[in-house]
């Protein structure tokens, strides 16, 4: 993947970034991606630390996980905005959330964040979000961040493709979305059980079914991951299958959320 990296290269300067994240794995992923681009990364493990760092350091951008111990990302952002009031300073803040729901988005923006990212962090989306919030930051022509972002969204759910599948019938779309919300957790559970018991035949069948439904719904990434899992079941590669499963579970979650939004099912909730 070279495209998304393009927008991460600072054409003007290297950035000083505060990464507020309590999960060591996520911290490492984000830090590695940012440092590879030549940025300096400071780390905070909760909202209180993030606030302290923001107070004493000159920062170009803050990546703020919303769920952290002691003080969460929303509260820390609100506190930073309060601290900045009247100083003319305003450090851009990118919220990082596990749930890219409309509610989370509203909370991020209401707390004073400039944009938000959903987990797991992917390079293209991370760099696009940074480009988006840093004023006057030039965009790499090869991979303009907005296109990159929408590309990422298309990988989760190809909305135009799915609307074509249902010939624009909203009722059918909703029905399919409901079926997926009901059935996909069941398939993931079967996969997990099969992984636990080393039952490759069951693993292959559940992955196969999930691949079928995700590909019918134009959930490109999920379908690819389900296919990979189906193949790994065939070659009986348990460690790789386990890794592949967690990626698949993430992607299925994203697809579920995207379907809920597309089918307008969040309105009635």
């Amino acid at each position, binding site marked *: 993947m070279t495209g998304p990296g393009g927008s991460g290269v600072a054409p003007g300067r290297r950035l000083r970034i505060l990464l507020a994240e309590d999960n060591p794995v996520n911290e490492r992923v984000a830090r590695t991606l940012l440092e590879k681009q030549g940025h300096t990364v400071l780390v905070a493990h909760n909202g209180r630390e993030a606030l302290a760092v923001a107070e004493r350091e000159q920062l170009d951008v803050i990546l703020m996980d919303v769920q952290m111990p002691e003080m969460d990302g929303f509260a820390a952002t609100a506190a930073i905005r309060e601290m900045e009031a009247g100083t003319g300073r305003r450090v851009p803040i990118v919220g990082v959330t596990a749930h890219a729901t409309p509610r989370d988005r509203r909370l991020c923006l209401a707390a004073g964040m400039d944009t938000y990212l959903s987990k797991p962090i992917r390079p293209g989306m991370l760099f696009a979000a940074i480009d988006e919030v840093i004023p006057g930051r030039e965009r790499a022509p090869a991979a303009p961040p907005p296109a990159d972002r929408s590309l990422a969204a298309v990988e989760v759910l190809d909305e135009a493709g799915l609307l074509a599948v249902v010939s624009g019938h909203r009722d059918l779309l909703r029905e*399919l979305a409901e079926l997926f919300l009901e059935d996909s957790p069941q398939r993931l559970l079967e996969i997990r059980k099969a992984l636990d018991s080393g039952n490759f035949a069951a693993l292959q069948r559940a992955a*196969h079914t999930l691949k079928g439904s995700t590909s019918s719904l134009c959930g490109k990434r999920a379908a690819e991951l389900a296919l990979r899992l189906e193949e790994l079941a065939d070659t009986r590669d348990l460690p790789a299958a386990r890794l592949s499963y967690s990626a698949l579970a993430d992607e299925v979650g994203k697809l579920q959320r995207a379907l809920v939004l597309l089918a307008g099912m969040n309105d009635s909730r």
Partner: protein
Amino acid sequence: MSTILVLDDDRIFRRLVVEALEQRGHRVLQAGRAAEADLLLEEEHADLLLVDGLLPDITGVQWIEKLRERGRQTRVLLITSFWKSMRDFTIAARKLGSIEMVRKPVEADELANRVEAALDVRGRSRRT
């Protein structure tokens, strides 16, 4: 109007097949497992079977083999996406008659075309 049995444990795929085929005036029977399909076929006549290559209780090819052993020559469209099912299919096609393969992913409309083409073949061979 023809009656088509779709055997696939993916309800989303079945729903799309029902939509596409009913729009063309066909009747669709649905089963999620081979055992369910067996029960349905005891009571109902189907002109064509649309069968997924990998079912919860058996492979599509194994099910068709059992069907043929019981003397049923109903035409089959086997839907496969995985290379292994394709290999199974190639072996099966030599051994079992009246079977064609459809590669997944397939659009519902295209699938409906394939179904109607297969029904046509059956209609013609019956007339001759």
